[in-house]
């Protein structure tokens, strides 16, 4: 399978403390790559460097053949980001949110409206797109959050904990959306604290701890490191790799 993203020696310090240190991994085209780790492991900092928002102190990332350091604009054209926060405007309708971010991504007004209609269908909100987002349930707001990331038809989609605090129905809808995107050819980087979610969705998983990648492989390969892959859960693998001590 063709490599779509390649991170090499990514390092980032905050106030002299390494948040991410010498992280290297690849994501193949059209795969769902899970990035797992306890709180403070460096997942979000890594995503911010992969998506050109944060400049690495060392290392580089190549996305679709373009360096995030030297060709940031080319990289930004190819990516969509869904942060774990609801990075949208609750006072506006879902349509207005989508059109706004679409226009900021370079679409014309007409294109943005057409794309917003398509995206709303994709995230299952076509019937309520004109309502203001603050009246939505948590799950609906999460779906708008994902929809915004899809406005520029990204080749690589970053989903940072997209299912936090939502009901099973909304979570299931998001799973189906992600799987449909992969089927359409989108590459996905997915972070989550829910191990069963990663097990169900991800083709391969990278486990981070204390700013470093400690394991990469398919769910079955990771389980095999601990025991019988048919009887071992991903959560057992995770605790085996990152320890049982509490994290801040």
């Amino acid at each position, binding site marked *: 399978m063709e490599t779509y993203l390649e991170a090499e020696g990514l390092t980032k310090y905050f106030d002299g403390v390494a948040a991410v240190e010498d992280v290297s991994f690849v994501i193949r085209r059209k795969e769902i790559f899970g990035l797992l780790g306890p709180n403070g492991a460096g997942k979000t900092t890594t995503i911010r460097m992969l998506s050109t*928002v*944060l400049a690495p102190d060392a290392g580089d990332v190549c996305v679709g053949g373009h360096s995030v350091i030297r060709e940031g604009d080319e990289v930004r054209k190819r990516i969509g*980001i869904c942060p774990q*926060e609801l*990075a*949208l405007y609750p006072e*506006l309708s879902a349509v*207005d949110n989508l059109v706004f971010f679409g226009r900021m991504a370079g679409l014309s007004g007409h294109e943005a409206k057409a794309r917003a209609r398509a995206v709303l269908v994709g995230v299952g909100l076509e019937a309520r797109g004109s309502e203001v987002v603050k009246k939505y349930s948590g799950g609906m707001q999460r779906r708008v959050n994902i929809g*915004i990331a899809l406005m520029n038809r990204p080749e690589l989609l970053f989903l940072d904990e997209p299912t936090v605090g939502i009901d099973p129905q909304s979570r299931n809808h998001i799973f189906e959306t992600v799987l449909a995107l992969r089927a359409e050819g989108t590459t996905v980087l997915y972070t989550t604290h829910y191990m069963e979610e990663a097990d169900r969705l991800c083709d391969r998983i990278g486990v981070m701890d204390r700013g470093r990648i400690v394991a990469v492989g398919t769910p079955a390969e990771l389980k095999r490191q601990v025991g019988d892959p048919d009887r071992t859960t991903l959560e057992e693998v995770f605790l085996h790799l990152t320890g049982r001590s509490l994290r801040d």
Partner: protein
Amino acid sequence: MTTFFRHAFILAAKDTQIFWRDRFGLVLAFLFPILFAFAFSHAVEDGGPPEAAPRLTVVAHEKHGVLREISAGLTASGWAVDERTRQEAVDAIENGEIEGFLLFPEDFGTSVATGGEVRIHVVVSGNHPAAEAVLQGVARAVGSRVETLALAARAVGALEPARPHDAEAMLEALRLPPLTSLEMTRMGQRRHNPANFTLPGYLTMFVFFAAALGAGAIVRERQTRTLERLLSTGVRAPSILAGKFLSGAGRGVAQLAVLWTVGVLGLSMDLGASPGAVVAVSLLFVLVSAAFGVMLAAMVDDLRSAATIGVFASLTLAPLGGCWWPLFIAPEWLQVIARLTPHGWANDAFNRLMLFGASASDVAPAMLALVVFASVFGAIALLRFRFSPPI
């Protein structure tokens, strides 16, 4: 460059769309200043001081004879004569109750009756030149009339040195007009419309207030990583800052349009001899406020700090900068402090233009000061702004 402006305008349009849906924001930006301007314009208009008789505090050791005549003359001339003992008057000055008084010495009546040297003392609290001028004027007027009587007394004394003189009887005998008759004329045929200083004051206060509170919305966008998300779509940081500045300025311009219209049509406000200069000062103050809002967002990390500092700055700078009362009636130290605030420069310019008929060139220093404030606030915002929440 085209993309820069395109992004800035789309961002500003989105913020404006949100602003028009924010009921509290609309009340704060438009309704409050209108209500305040109406209420305080009418309160000042209906108030007592301009209509009431001017008060004149007098210390006299006699309540009869010449002094009674003087008192009657002053009252007939429209003064409210307030008679006190010397100690009471001194205490009143120290308490700030009065600014000065006229002191007629113990031998005043005798001096007039005998044709001796007549003295009236003017006692004024420090640094009240206006009160001093009024009291001096009254003392001179009284003195000039009393001199006539003293002259007559001297003449009678020369003819009849052995006979004690009664000033009151002498007045009657000489049929002199009332001892004191001071004509008072209120300067100007038309009183100033109080809205000419209340509305500009509340306009500056609430334009700044709305911009300062707007900083909270920017901080919220940073916390929810919306700004970061914009950066990841290829929007440049300067475009985002320009968009935020534009939206703040657009909101301020809308406030100006509404408030000046209400002022002119609803409060019969007079923009003075240079309405263009009034508009120019208003627009410059809007730029200062918008830049302050972005600067505040650049300097704080969370919503609570943004709200606290925004409210504190607005409510502190407003009185210091002459939003609640005209600066020219404020003590000198307050006028000096006002020069450190954009409100002070703006209100001083508004007062000059709308109350004293100044021209655009007269308020050029104020306009320059506002440009400096906007530049400094904008530069700090550019240097300090962060697009991501603190780690």
